[in-house]
């Protein structure tokens, strides 16, 4: 079985907008979602900036009891999933829910809950740890929550491949649909870990920027880039086999043509010099899509704004795409929303679908002076219209995980 896989619903909760419409407008306009940290007092800390979702009130979406059962990453994920399912107009009462699955990625799951309960443990003892600690904290629990919400009894997965988890969750869902294991998949990623523990961990390994200028903090491919900005959010997609989507006359937003993965097998946190793993994941995705290199119209880069990632990613793009790289516009969504970790690939996937729909590429903001080692067309400061059939999106995670995925517009459907 070799089904075509299409996208019929999108949902997003991001630092530049809750809901697809506000995210789309903000992304195309190049809005910056980065500001001084509000989650805790970071005034005297080295890292002062993050990309938080400040207007998200769980009471707008959940009962008090539900809120008590969910870490924030789950709340963000469910809100995004609800929007995606609503937009897809799936009639859950009419379809066979045994063939509806869920695949969501996260880097660290409910680490905010872990931190809170650890404080209670250290202060008061074992008996004061919340009875719901485990089902709130587990990284797979978003998948479980979404399955319960929609009654989805098909395949369920929760990749935790760090910053590649969102793309991997979508990639796994795509394969399940392609090979006939499911007919519908709700897939994406969610992350919410802007807390002192995570910031300290990333700061002490020199991964985060210590910039105090929100507009010039996340500056991928800039010669003065100094690390990423931690962000939070969730992105969810409804994926279906083409046959299933056509049968129910769904509004098809785009298609997934291919997915590729590789592992650096090199270092816990640094990518291979020259980006060998990234070359492989991109090549695998393009092969899977049955495309030629020249048919890729744009790349949504991993583009974190760290010294090593950006250098190796650009090197990988230049090595694989050769002369086509000169004509290949590339951008970084992280320049606007920071690094959403396990949700980044999912929110960026939504960005790609919106770009294909609008035939318009969003800008890379923040970046001023392109690193002379990394000369590509980055759409600095301003997006622009482009003829877009296929966009490749990259996500790379600690542990050496490299994931690439190819999205196409709906013109042939």
């Amino acid at each position, binding site marked *: 079985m070799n089904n075509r896989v299409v996208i019929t619903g999108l949902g997003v909760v991001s630092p530049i907008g809750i809901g697809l419409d506000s995210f789309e407008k903000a992304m195309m306009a190049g809005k910056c979602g980065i500001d001084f940290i509000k989650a805790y007092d970071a005034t005297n800390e080295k890292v002062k900036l993050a990309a938080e979702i400040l207007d998200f009130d769980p009471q707008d979406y959940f009962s008090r009891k539900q*809120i*008590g059962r969910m870490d924030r990453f789950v709340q963000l994920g469910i809100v995004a999933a609800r929007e995606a399912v609503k937009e897809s107009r799936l009639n859950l009462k009419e379809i066979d829910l045994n063939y509806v699955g869920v695949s969501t990625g996260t880097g660290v799951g409910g680490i905010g809950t872990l931190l809170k309960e650890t404080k209670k443990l250290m202060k008061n003892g074992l*008996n*004061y740890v919340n*009875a719901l600690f485990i*089902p709130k904290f587990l990284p797979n629990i978003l998948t479980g929550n979404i399955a319960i919400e929609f009654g989805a009894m098909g395949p369920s997965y929760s990749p935790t491949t760090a910053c590649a988890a969102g793309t991997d969750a979508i990639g796994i869902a795509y394969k399940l649909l392609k090979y006939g294991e499911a007919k519908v998949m709700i897939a994406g990623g969610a992350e919410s870990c802007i807390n002192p523990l995570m910031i300290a961990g990333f700061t002490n390994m020199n991964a985060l920027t210590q910039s105090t200028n929100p507009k010039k903090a996340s500056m991928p491919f800039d010669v003065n880039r100094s690390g990423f900005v931690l962000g939070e959010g969730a992105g969810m997609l409804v994926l279906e086999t083409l046959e299933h989507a056509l049968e129910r006359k769904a509004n098809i937003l785009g298609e997934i043509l291919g997915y590729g993965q590789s592992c650096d097998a090199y270092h816990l946190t640094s990518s291979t010099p020259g980006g060998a793993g990234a070359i492989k994941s991109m090549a695998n995705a393009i092969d899977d899509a049955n495309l030629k290199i020249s048919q890729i119209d744009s790349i949504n880069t991993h583009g974190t704004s760290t010294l090593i990632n950006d250098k190796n990613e650009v090197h990988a793009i230049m090595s694989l795409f050769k002369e086509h790289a000169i004509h290949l516009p590339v951008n970084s969504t992280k320049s606007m929303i920071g690094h959403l970790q396990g949700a980044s690939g999912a929110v960026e996937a939504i960005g790609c679908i919106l770009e294909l729909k609008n035939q318009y590429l969003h800008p890379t903001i923040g970046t001023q002076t392109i690193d002379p080692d990394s000369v590509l067309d980055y759409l600095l400061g301003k997006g622009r219209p482009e003829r877009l059939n296929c966009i490749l999106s990259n996500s790379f995670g600690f542990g050496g995980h490299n994931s690439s995925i190819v999205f196409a517009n709906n013109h042939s459907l």
Partner: protein
Amino acid sequence: MNILKNVIKEIMDVMGLSPEEIQLSTHLYDELDVDSLDMSQILLALENQYKIDLPDEELDHIETVEDLVKVVEEKLKDKEY
């Protein structure tokens, strides 16, 4: 009376309910839709508050708010001896 008040408060906190929704005779599972995770939270909160043990086997005897109050009262009496 205080025990009843505290039991109701813990149920309110866990279930996100208001006080008028909980009476002495209210059935925890049938009327309030309390599940095993809710019950674990309620029992743990009462254990910590009264410094008593409420092991899982006690659950067999608890169906209503009144049952829960009685179990707490009995455990407090045992503690006195």
